[in-house]
Each structure stands twice: as C-alpha cells, then as structure tokens.
C-alpha cells in the first residue's frame, strides 16, 4: 500500500474520515471500490476504539431479577452477567470450545476424568486472585444437593470436584461424558469468590466490567475493570448500560432515536421495514432455538401415535415460517436438532404438509371431538397467531382444533409441562447430548412430551461416552429418526435471533448459540468515534 493510502487508513481508523470520504479518496488513488470498501471496514472495525458509554435496550428483565447467577433465567440477567463474570470455557461462534478462565482442558481416555488448568493472575473485582479453590467452590455451590441453581440439572453426574494445586481443578464424572467442557460454559457457572457461597448476589466476578448500578427490571450499568486480564479483546467501552425495555415497539423507538445503541428481539414482522431505516443494521442469526407444540405421549388422545402423526402432518411448516417468522427462520422436522449443532444429521427427509394423509391417520386413530391446544403470548412471540394458522390447516385435514388462550401469568408453571398439548419454545443447548438429555430421555427433568423410549435412552447413553465422532453421528441420526416418527414433539420452525444496532456500533460478530452475540455484545463491541 502506498504511503498515502496508509495515511488514509490510519485516518479512517481514528474515525477522522467518513466511509464516503475514504472511498472517494481511495478510488482517486486507483483502488477498486469493493477492495476500498473492505479496507475501510477492516480499518474501522479492526482496531477497537476504547471509551464511551455503550447502551443496550433489552427485552427480558423483571423487577424480581437478582445478581445471583444461580437464579438467572432471562437474557437480560445473563447478558449483564456475561459482562461482569466469566466461565471456565466459552463456545465460539463456529461451535468450537475456547478457553476462558481455564487455559487448558484435558481428559482421561475414558472421558471420565477432566483436568482444567486455570489461567494465572486473574483478579476478581474485589482485588483477590482467582484460584482453584474458588472454581471448586463455584461448581460445588451449583451441584450441591441443597442447591437452588438453574444449573443443577447439568451438574448431575459429577462424582468428584477437587483442587490440584492452586491453579488446577480435577473433575470426575460417574459416566463417560465427552461434552463436559461444553457444560462449563453455561452462564450459571460464573466463577465467583469462594463460589459465591458468602454473598451469591454481590455481583463480583472476574469479567471485563464491574457492576456500578443494579436496579432490577429497570437499568443495569457497569464500568470497565481496569485490571482485567485481556483488555485488548474485551471491555472496549468505558461504561456499559442495559435498559430493560420489554415492549418491542418502545425498544425499536429507543434505537431509532439513539437512546440505546443496540436492541435484542426485533419482531420478524417489522424487520423489512427496519431494514429500510438509515443508520440501523439488522442481524438475523440462525441458531438452535425453536418454537414448538409438545404433546404428552402418555395422555389420551395424544397417546395414540396415529393422532400425533396426523397432527404433525396437518402443520403447514412453510407457511408458519413465512407468516410467523416472515422468513427469518427455517422449517423444523419434529426433532430439536438443526445445523447449529455439531454432528447434526443431514439426510433425514423433511416432513411436509399433507392434509389427506393427516385426515386418514386422524380417522384411523378413532378420536372424535375437538383437540385442545393451549397457547399464550408468552409461549413464543406470535404463539397465539401460530395457533390460529394451525387451526386453519387442521380444519383442512378434518381435525377440529380448539384454541384456549391462557394468561401469560403462570403459563410456564401451570400450562407448559402440565397440559397435554400447548405452545412452547426451547432456546437450545450447546450439544445434541445436552438437548436430548434435558428434554427427551425418560428421566429428563423437562420431558415435556412425556416420551419414554428404551431404545432412545440407550442410544443417548452410548453416544455420550463415544469418542469416535463418526459412530456418534450415526447414533444421533437414529435418535432423531425415533423422535421424529414416534415422539410427541411437533416442531414446525427454528427461529432466527433478530437483533439490531445503529452504525456507531463496531465489532459485531453473529453468534449462533444465543442472542446478542451469545451475551457478549456489550463486552466485545465498541463505539465508532
């Protein structure tokens, strides 16, 4: 590159040149437009700019929220948490495991003993050094039988957790588990001083930001932790702030009027209109999250597989994706796995809308009278609408679907996992094993389809301990087929995460695992000057 171009690039990096000025002058120097454009993008987003107040407006906060990671259930808590706390491991956007507080992870040949070598010299916000004792205490707190942690489910099966010197932790499991390091990227498992046993909601961690303000359901703010171990890549903005804006229209208005820099959960219906706005960039990221209608396989009339199959065939999936997601998603195939997972089966035929076959199976099932589907606006965005569309296609197959709209209040405790047929969603899990063992094996904590299949359970255990990826993939293929053809899951669509930010925000990288760059948006992005 010529000196002049270097100078221009440097100017752009410092934010002294607008994109248009840069392109104009670069092309005057004889550079082609696409190339100039990418040089500019790299110059601007390549070097993070330190400083400023980065603000997010987010859905999913409540005045009952707490800073105790064990109690987190919603995206505001976990996004703020990922700014002030850290886990042992992270999952990268491409699905790879990357070290965070653990520098190195290794396992014994039988995948039952795992050694985590910790990063040295990492400080908590209170000035203490993070050591193996803190990690062990954290893991203990979440796996303790008396624990109230949301991570209790995934911590089962740990036989022993112990320190090995100041910077090493050894974990043994009762059964082989090839996915264990993935589990430790769970956001509940933020490492806290003494595991948070003394003050679980103190909000003290090792993350790039330290908590300055915590008003549950209203506003959370934090300032950069100057002793953070990796300020080159994290913690660019001097301060960050999350404002809880649960109303989608208000959220969009706040972004448009510049009161926040980024928002989550843009409604699919308005995306096309938002894309026309200047200064706003919309990201839709396809991930493992899906909208579904679980049926209880052990409750009449859903105990009849003909009826279940009829209901699956009476679903017009393409139309759902088109009308409910406005195309920002993909059709489901009645098993909860898609391309976002490692080793996902690829050759399973797509189930299509087939009212005639549905009618045939429905009549063969011998059921008569209405089939009741419960839905609510909180089940997933557009759940009430989706139920109405489904009611239409069911009618084409001669199935009388009755919709009951339940109050959002108490939906997750009284309707979901209690009523035999309702609307629901899953945000997905990092691995297939975790998804199946959380929701579909016989002993799963949230077996919301009441699916009890011995062959399926055996395959799950085998696959978990299998280190040969080829064999493992075959087992997952078989599991998907069983669930698809015999299970109680009606899964019409995988929904994209749709989020937006204004053009001041730089460094955004889509992350398929979860929304807002898997919760890292505030600690990884920066503001252009």
């Amino acid at each position, binding site marked *: 590159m010529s000196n002049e171009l270097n100078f221009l690039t440097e100017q752009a990096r410092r934010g002294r040149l607008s994109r248009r000025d840069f392109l104009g002058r670069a092309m005057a120097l004889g550079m082609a437009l696409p190339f100039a454009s990418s040089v500019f993008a790299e110059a601007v987003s390549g070097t993070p700019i330190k400083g400023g107040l980065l603000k997010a407006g987010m859905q999913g906060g409540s005045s009952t929220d707490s800073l105790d990671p064990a109690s987190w259930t919603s995206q505001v808590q976990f996004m703020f948490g990922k700014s002030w706390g850290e886990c042992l491991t992270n999952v990268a956007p491409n699905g790879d495991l990357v070290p965070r507080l653990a520098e190195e992870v290794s396992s014994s040949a039988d995948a039952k003993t795992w050694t985590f070598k910790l990063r040295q010299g990492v400080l908590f916000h209170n000035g203490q050094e993070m050591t193996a004792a803190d990690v062990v205490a954290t893991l203990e707190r979440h796996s303790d039988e008396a624990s109230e942690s949301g991570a209790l489910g995934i911590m089962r099966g740990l036989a022993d957790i112990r320190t090995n010197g100041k910077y090493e932790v050894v974990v043994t499991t009762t059964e082989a588990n090839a996915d264990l390091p993935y589990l430790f990227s769970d956001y509940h498992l933020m490492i806290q001083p003494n595991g948070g046993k003394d003050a679980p909601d103190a909000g003290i961690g090792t993350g790039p930001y330290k908590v300055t303000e915590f008003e549950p359901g209203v506003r959370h703010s934090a300032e950069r932790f100057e002793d953070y171990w990796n300020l080159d890549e994290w913690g660019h903005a001097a301060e960050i702030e999350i404002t809880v804006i649960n109303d989608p229209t208000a959220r969009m208005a706040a972004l448009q009027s510049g009161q926040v820099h980024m928002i989550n959960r843009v409604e699919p219906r*308005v995306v096309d209109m938002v894309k026309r706005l200047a200064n706003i960039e919309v990201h839709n990221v396809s991930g493992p999250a899906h909208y579904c209608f679980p049926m209880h396989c052990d409750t009449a009339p859903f105990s009849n597989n003909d009826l279940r199959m009829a209901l699956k065939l009476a679903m017009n999936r393409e139309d759902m994706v088109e009308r409910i997601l406005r195309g920002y998603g993909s059709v489901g195939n009645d098993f909860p796995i898609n391309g976002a997972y490692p080793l996902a089966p690829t050759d399973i035929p797509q189930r299509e809308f087939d009212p005639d076959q549905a009618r045939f199976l429905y009549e063969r099932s011998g059921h008569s009278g209405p089939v009741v589907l419960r839905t609510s606006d909180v089940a997933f965005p557009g759940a009430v*609408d989706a139920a109405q569309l489904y009611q239409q296609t069911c009618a084409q197959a001669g199935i009388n679907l009755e919709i009951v709209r339940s109050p959002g*209040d108490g939906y997750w405790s009284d309707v979901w996992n209690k009523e035999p047929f309702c609307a629901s969603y899953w945000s997905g899990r990092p691995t297939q094993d975790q998804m199946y063992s959380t929701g579909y094996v016989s002993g799963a904590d949230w077996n919301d389809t009441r699916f009890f299949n011995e062959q399926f359970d055996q395959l799950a255990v085998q696959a978990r301990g299998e280190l040969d990826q080829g064999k493992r993939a075959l087992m997952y293929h078989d599991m998907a087929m069983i669930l698809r053809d015999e299970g109680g899951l009606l899964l019409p669509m995988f929904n994209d995460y749709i989020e937006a930010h204004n053009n001041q925000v730089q460094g955004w990288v889509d992350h398929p695992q979860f929304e807002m760059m898997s919760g890292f948006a505030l600690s990884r992005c920066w503001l252009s000057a």
Partner: protein
Amino acid sequence: MKLPNNPLANIPIAALIGLILTTLFVVAAVFAPWIAPYSLSESVGDMWESSSAVHWLGTDNLGRDLFSRLLYGARTTMTIAALATALAFSLGSILGILAAVLGGWADQLMSRTIDLLMSIPTLIFALVVLSVMPSTTIILVLVMGILDSTRVYRIARAVAVDINVQDFVEAARLRGEGRVWIIFREILPNALSPLVAELGLRFIFAVLFLSSLSFLGLGVQPPEADWGSMVRENRQGIVFGVPAALIPAGAIALLAISVNLVADWVLRRTTDLKGGRSG
C-alpha cells in the same frame, strides 16, 4: 311532566348522525355473516396489505381480511360491552341511590364494601376468577359489570345524596310517599343526566377493558376478536405507518362518538323531563 307528542320530531342533526351511525354499527354486527366477504379466521392474503378492491380495508397481521374481521368483531365487541355496561349501570346506580336514601349503617356497609372491591388490583381479581371459573363470555360480562359498577355506584350515590336533601324530596317524604316511589319518581329523574353522561363513557371503557381481559385469556378466544384486541394484534405496524391498527381504533372512536352523541341528546331530553324551562 309531559312528553312531546313525537319525540323524534325535532331531533337535532348531531343526534341524528349519532343515531344513524349507531344503527349502522348494530346492523353490521347483526348481519356480519351475510355482509362479510371473507371468513373471520381464514388467511386470504399477505400480511398488512393495503386496501384494495379485493380487501376494502386491507389485511391484518396474519393476512386475514380486515373488513370481515371488523364486522365479526362488531358483534363480540358491542354485545359484551353493552351487556357489561347495562349490568354495571343497573347494579351501580340502584345500589348507589339506595345507599343514599337509606343512609346510616346500610349506606356505610355498602360504601365500604365498594371501597374494598375497588381496592383489589384488577389483575389479581381477573387471575383469580380465571383460575376458579370457566373462561366464558358470561363470566367475562359479570367480571366487567361488577368491577365497573363500583365506579357507577360512587357517582350515583354522590348525586343521590345531594338530591335526597332537597326540599322536594323532603316534601314527598312528608306526603308519606314510600322509598320506592321516592327513588324512581324523585331521585332517579334528577340524577339522570350525570348518569347518562357516565353511561356513554362507561360503554367505551368497557370496549377497551374487554381487550385487556381478552389478552389475559378471559372470555373472547382467538380466532374471534374484539376491536380492542384487533388494535393490539396489529400494533407493531403503528410506528411504521401501517393502517391495520388504525382501522379498528377508528371504529372504536367512531362508535364512541356516535354513542355519546345519542347520550348527549338523551341528556338534553332528561333535563327537559325535569320541567323548568324547555331547552
């Protein structure tokens, strides 16, 4: 007291407009299945199409014909709102006036019970009702009617207490008229104008209240929808200039204005009824 020979003879133009519009709304509601070009639930186009020869008012958030939904919505909306308002009114005004006439501990008991009813947050009230009773239209009307009657009661009692101490009521008492006679012949006619004004507004509040209760799952179940819920369904389009929410909202406003034009007219006629000068 005398009535003019033909009450519709010199009806003012505003009231006439109100009457015509209200009648139109009622006709639309009654004959919805025959007038509506499409069904209430079928998706017949793309989302939020603008108005065209095929879809006069465009389509809604699921691509359903807005005009047809508006017609069907008129049924639910007006029936439930009218029933609830009627209940709220008869209950509220009769109890309110009774409390004023009886006075003493009866008044105290009724008034404090009303205080108690008003004090319970609506959300909790509605959720409790939902959890113990079936979610039907009748329950919905009862809940709306009873909650609204507390407000009517407060106003009716306040007005009636004032009238109860007027000379002509005293005179009637001295003449030995019974309580029922006093309530219906003396107090009610004189309390009517504030009550009628309240009636016109209560009806509108009922239309709006209905949508929030439907949203909670009490009463109207999808795909049926009342007008307030139709505004809610299409609200995401408001800030992008999509008229789908504006149309049901406009319908509510138009209904509000026409009902209140009629109420105003009745108001003038009730003030005439009391005698004195002719208006």
